[in-house]
Every structure is written in structure tokens, then in C-alpha cells.
């Protein structure tokens, strides 16, 4: 990254957490299309996060292949045919797993940081 961008004090999406963010978003907001998901993530992050909106599409396809989300065709605000994504039961379970993993990881890191200081 260029130094200029760093001044904005935004972070990239932590590696491997985009899936978690998407699953959580669908869990709280219900079915929505790609653009809404991307916007919602940005809004919740309140400009702390630098998200390439395009990067959510490969993630969505990956999640669908895993059977964690399903798609339905719907119509966007611009009257275009787009996919609406929603959480499956397996996805809901996976979300719990990912949340637990994340909490474990952060707790571990936190403990190290405490020990260091």
C-alpha cells in the first residue's frame, strides 16, 4: 500500500474474516443482494475498514458452494435481475463456529499483549 493511503488510518479486511462479516450481516439483516451486503459492511465499519466491494462476490460464491448461503433471483432498485443471498441452516451453524474461533483467536492475542506489557 502506498504511504498516502495509510494516513486515512483504515485497515484492510483481516485475512479470512470477510466470510465471517458476510455471514453475520446476512444473519442480522436477512436476505439481501451483493451491493447491499457491501454497503452494510462498510456502514457498520464506519470507515475503519477499506473494503474492495468487488471482493465480496468471490466470497459469496465460495460461501454458496460450501452450502452456507443460498441465492434467489430478485430485482434490484435499478430494475435489474440480481441475486439475493440468505443464510442457510448450515450457514447459521458455521457462523457460530466462526464467531467462536474469532473470539478464541482474539482472546489469545489479547493475553499475549497483556503478558508483553
Amino acid at each position, binding site marked *: 500500500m502506498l504511504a498516502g493511503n495509510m494516513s486515512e488510518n483504515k485497515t484492510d479486511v483481516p485475512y479470512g474474516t470477510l466470510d465471517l462479516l458476510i455471514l453475520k450481516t446476512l444473519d442480522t439483516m436477512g436476505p439481501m443482494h451483493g451491493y447491499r451486503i457491501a454497503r452494510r459492511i462498510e456502514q457498520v465499519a464506519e470507515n475503519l475498514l477499506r473494503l474492495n466491494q468487488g471482493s465480496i462476490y468471490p466470497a459469496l460464491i465460495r460461501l454458496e458452494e460450501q452450502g452456507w448461503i443460498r441465492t434467489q433471483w430478485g430485482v434490484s432498485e435499478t430494475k*435489474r435481475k440480481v441475486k439475493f443471498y440468505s443464510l442457510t441452516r448450515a450457514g447459521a451453524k458455521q457462523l457460530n463456529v466462526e464467531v467462536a474461533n474469532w473470539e478464541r483467536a482474539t482472546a489469545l492475542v489479547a493475553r499475549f499483549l497483556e503478558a508483553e506489557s
Partner: protein
Amino acid sequence: MNLRFAVGRLLALFRNRRLDGELEGEILAHLEMAELNAIAAGLSPEEARREARRGFGGIEQMKENHREQRSVRWVENLLRDLRYGMASLARDPGFAAVTIGLLALGIGANTAMFTIVDAVLLRPLPFPEPERMVRLWETPTPGHHNNTTTLTFLDWKRQDTIFEALSAEEPVSAAVATGADPVRLSGKLVSADYFNVFGVTARIGRTFALGEDQPGATPVVVLSYSLWQTRFGGDPDVLKRDFVLDGESHRIIGVLPAGSFDRDEARFWQPLILAPIQLNRNQHWLQVVGRLRSGVSIEQARAKMSSLRASLGAVIPQKKLGFAVDPFAQLLVGDTLRRSIYLAFGAVLLVLLIACANVANLVLAKGATRRKEMALRAALGAGRGRLIGQLLTESLVLCLLGGMAGIAVAYLLLHAAAPLVAASLPFTADLSLDLRVLGFAALAVMAVLILTGLLPSLQTSFGKLSSSLNQAARGSSASSAAVRRTIVIGEVAASVVLICGAALLFKSLAKLEQVDAGVRIDHVITMSTDLPSTAYPTPESATTFYEAVVQRLRSAPGVEQAALSLDLPLQGTRWGEWISLAGVKEALLVRVKMVDPWYFATLQIPLESGRGFEERDRAGAPPVMVINQEAARFLSSRFDMANPIGRVVGIHLPGYGPIPESPVSVQIVGVIRNERTGGLHAPEEPVAYVPLAQVPRQDVSLVVRTRSEPLAAMSGIREAVRQIDPHLPLGEVRTMEQVKERSILWEKQPTWVVGAFAGVAALMAALGLYGVLAHAVTQQRREIGIRMALGARPGDVVSHTLRNALSMVIVGLAVGLAGTFALTRVLKSLLFEVSALDPVAHALACVLMTLIGILAAWIPASRAARVDPMTVLRDEG
């Protein structure tokens, strides 16, 4: 990775285009919405579009990212690894050649051996419902099998609630005119039911019809496929032709399908017509095969047969004689053959194991040098599974190439071995590489893959890869060396087992070959004839022929002495009879040989007492008999007959042609030294000789002693016989040396097979040892250099390496010797006058293996001694 996921990805391969289109649409919709949002926020349309694109990120990059993710990555990885594996083999052709060669040898030998195991032991007989096929015997005493008599056979045949088909068979041979010299063909006389027993129908024409085995029927013949091909050139109109056997014309009614019957000794089949004179219960001459009715078990058949036996008490006076029914398959494969095959298969499996060990060793050695590469790949993010996958794929490439080469090796081995072993295998054994065998080869490849691939993979990947970046640069890794040493110890152990087995078998074979046959072996040639009933209808005609042919032979060039006899030494004696003494209830079972007056002289069997046969012992003269020492011993111990000469005994002797046996009183006139009648390993048996002139036979053998190389005299012998009877073919021309050779074939073949495998195993173990030591020396160059710089002499370095080798060999020997004790039970039954624990053979195996070990260690050791400390220390210091 769950199944659904995997299937989804696979399907994705086929719907890439559609997915790309869908994605395109979603991106467009996304950008439109982002633009609208930006305009709503107050940006100009121009700026809004730019902002939307900026927020989205690189579109092409994203698409690429997506494509990569949805493709079936493991397929791509596999293909990449395969390519990589091939490339890495091509970079190291020496390694590739050695490993593929080892695997080809191991897999090839195993596949060839499996073909034999499968054909002889595993596969059901190539006939419909083979479990219904049986053989029927008389048992004169329990456990003893004998042929049956005509009338008993006919009694059996009437049990048609049990047997769907029942047939007697009797081997024959017939003269067939070809060019200048007539040849003899083997055939069989069989009941009309015979082919129903086997469930075989003719390929062309038909087999025998009911009634064709009754007296007065037109003479007909069925040909084997191979005879049809060789003699009639596969003529489709062969049924219109006649076949002249022994000068008599036979109508060809059918040709059998190709297959089992081509491996039978018989080339043609004729109906067995039972002459009225043969309808008796004295002549035990018929072999009987049958097919049980469907649903009838062999136990039911046995029960029925024993009740039949009980009902025949009045006509069969011998109390102990019973009837036996055995599965046909069981009798085709004798115990010796079964054990020999298992032994050879065990040996070849050991060879495959050793080959695998060697390959694993080579891969490990290569792996050690690749630790750096692996560590680098791990550091760059390759998962452990991915690394193991790559190594396994490389092993797979090796194993597949080795397997393919192995199948070629198996084909060549079978091609070379089939004619050699065919005589020892049953006629139903079809030695060809079919799908079953290829399936076995595939299994072998899988097993080899696991053995050679998994261990090195785990070894390489589980090692602390992070540390190997440093470690590999400096020298050996201790754990890899330990594994490789263990493998070599295993190889040495397996080789010792094989060498030991081979040593025992060779010692046994040597003992067998030293057995005194009791007859002259060198400069003797033998051949068989069969006087056709058409040309020799009376006993007088046969006797005239005997005298004339011996007379003529004796004046043939190079011939010293000539004689005639029924049965040759070492080949077994067909006739067995009871000798009875007046006033004594017990009788003595002896083998009976009909010989002419010159037989003992020709084979140089010395007379112990009394006289041999003379020309005066002819038909009409008082019947006489000569017995061997063994018979004399029995007579003296059992019947208190201290001097048998001059004593008169009773015996049943067969008449000429179909004339059955009749009781005769004969006088014992001489005792001769034992000749080995039943084979070198068979115990001596009591034998009674009677003059051929008094008991003439049609199927006699000629025995000729020559002055020089016996085969060179053959043309003179043929000419002499032709002068007496131009239509009489000579069959089975063999020198006595060949006869002896054939009699120990069953001992010789497994011995040489195991010996060859032992040699290969020892060679492979030596190679493995060499590999480990050479690698160790390379890795320890620095250490050796330092030691030499500190004053160690080359001799010390050599002895260090040799000690290293010997320590492995000695542990291997200990393990191997323990293994040989486990083999004792298998080997014991195959050994002749050698204990399975024979210390000499074991010591020999150990010494041999140690020598091989030292030889293998010598090159690396001397290379270690030539290490120049200066160079090494400067190189790596």
C-alpha cells in the same frame, strides 16, 4: 471437503460460461446502484461513475480471483504434480532407471507367479459347474487309490440317481503316418459319456453319441483343437476326412474347442469299447471320472457308493476294498505342487518387498537432498497435505511406470517359463495374462505405492521443516538415517530367509542327485513303442518282433547292448500284483515288470544270486520270475523264506491285448540288486520281473546302451527298427540322463525358482546396503575429513564404514534366521534327507550374506578412505 462441495466444484467446471455471465450481470447491477447512491450524495454523474468503480476495486482481478477459486484445484494440482514428477524423473534418469527397473522386476515376477497361482490353485476349473466333477476309485486298503475293473465300473454306471455322467478312460497311443517316419500320438479311449462329464461340446461336429462305445460301432475319433490345427491345417471340412490310426481308418466326427484339452497329453479321443473278455473283476485298469447330478452332494455320493459296495460283497471277495469319490479338482493338484507353488510365491513376494524397500530407500535418500526444497515450499505457504500429495504423486509416477514395465516383464517371464513348467502343471491351468492377472498387477502397484511412497512422504514432511533449511545445508538428518538403516536390515533379513531356503533346497537336490539309481545312467537311450493290435494280433507275433528288433539293434552302429522292458527305471511301474505262497494266507504286494533276457545286462543291474532270464524262458516253457533284493528281504522277513531261489509262488499275470489276468504258478530263479523304480526320492519297493516272452505286452520300451554319445546313435536305431517294421513309430526318445532329470523335475523346478529369487534378493539387498553406505559417506565427508586431519589413517576410515555395514548385516542375519525357523514347517515336506534346520545351509547363508554385505560396503568404504581432508574442509568450512 464435503462431497457436495466437491461435486459443486466439479460441476462448476462445466458451467463456467454461465457463471461468468451471471457474475458479469451482478457486477453491472452493483456498479449502477453504487452510481445512483453517489449521485444521491451529490456527486456529478461523471464523478459518481468513477467513485463506484473505485469502491468496487479491480474488476478483472476480482474475476480472475473468482475463476481460480471455483476451478477444481486438486485436479489442477494433480496434473501439475504429475508433470512435475515426470520432469523430476527426467532430470535424474539414473534414479528413474534404477527404481523403475527394481519395481518392474518385483511386480513382473509377482505377476508371473500369480498367473501360475491363479491358474493352478485359485481359479475354478474351466468347465461348467466344476464342483460336480468327481473321480472314482477303488481303495484296496484305506488311503490307497486304485483303478477299477470293468464290471465294477458298470455297477457304478448304473447309479444314475447320483451320476449324471460317468466315464472310464484309458490312455492309448497310435501310429500315424507322416512323411518318412511314422509318429506316435497320444490319445484316450473314453466312454461315450466322457465329454458330458466335462460339460464340453464340440467346436465342429459333435462328440460321442450314446452307443458309439458299444461293440460293432463304426470307428470314430474326436480331435483336439491343436491337432486339428497342426495336422489338418484347421480345415473347416475336416469332418469329411478320415484319420488313419495304426493303419485303421477312423471317421472324424468332431473337433474340441481350444483350451484345456490342448494342454492334455491326449490329442485324440476314441470310444472305449469294452470287449466281452474284459467283463471281469480281476483287471483293475479303468480310471473313472464322473459328474454328479445337480443337487447331489459328494457326501451323498459317498454314502451311496458305500452301500453299493456292501451289496457287492458276494462278487468282490477282498474285504478291505472300498469305493472312493473325490472332487476332480483336488486330484489335479498334488500336495507337492501346491506346496512348491506356495513356496515360490512366498519367495517372489519377499523379492517384491525387498524391491519396495530399495525403492523406498532411494526415494528417502532423494528426499533427504530435497528437504531444502520442501522446506522452502512449506515456507512459501504449501500445506503439509499438499507436500505429501506432491511426493505421493511422484511415487505414483514411478509405480505406474514400474507397473507397466512389470507387466511386460511378466509377459516375457511367462513366455519363457510356460514351456518349462507346463509338464508339472495340470492340463486345466491356462497361463495367460488376463484381466484377473492385470487386476493383481494393479493391486501390486497400489501396495508398492503405499510401501514406497507413504513412508518417505511422511518422513520428509513431518520432519521439522522449519529447521531443515539450516540443517540440510550442513549434513544428515538422524531420523532419516535410522529409517534407512532399518529398511536395509529388513532387506538383509528377507534375503537371508531366501538364501537359506535356497541353500536347503539345493542341498536336498544334490542329495537326491547322488542317490544311486541302481542302473547305468550314462550312454543309455530309451524310447517307447506300442505294437498295434492290427499288425501284432497274437502274442507270438509280438514275441517274434521283440527278438528280431533286439537282434537288429545290437548290430546297429555304435550300439553295445539293447533290451526291451515294460516301464523304465525311475518312472514308476504300472503293474502291481500280489505274490501268494501255497498254504500262507498273507500275500506280498509287488510291482511287476516284464523284461527281456538282456534287460539286466543292458542297464548293468548285477545279479545277486540264481540266474537272470535266458532265451529258453519263452512261451510254453515253465514260468519263471526274478525278484529284487527288496522283495527277497520281504519274503525272508515276512514269510521266513531265507532262500527264495527255486521256490514256486502264485501270481496273477495279464494276457496279451485285452485278455485279462489269470493266476499262474511261477518259479523264482534269481535275485537281482535293486533298481530305483519309482524315482530317486521314492523308497525302494519290492519288484518281481517276469520274462516278456512269457507275458508279452504291446506298450514296451526299448533300452539301448551305446558306445558313444547316445543321441548320435539314434539314426542307426531308427533305421534298425524300420527294417523290422517300417510302420512302427518310436516315441519319447530320451537318454537315461533325461529320464533321471525328469524324475526329479518336481524337486528341481521349485529349487531353481527359489534359488533365482534368492539371488535377485541378495543383489537387491547389496544394492540397498551400498546405497545407504554411499549416502552416509557423502554426508559424513566433513566428519571423515576432520578425523583424518586429526590423524586417522585410511585403514581406520575403511574399517569404520565396514563396521557400520556389518552392524546392519548382523542384525539382519539375526532377524532373518528367526524368520527361517518360521519357514521350517513349509520346507520340511519339500526336503529330501536334509533337515530344515540344517546347520550347514544356515551357516552358508549367513557367510554368503556377510560376504555380499562386505562387497557392497567396499566401494563406499574405499571412497571414504580417499577423502582428502584439505579439500573437504575448505569446501564446506
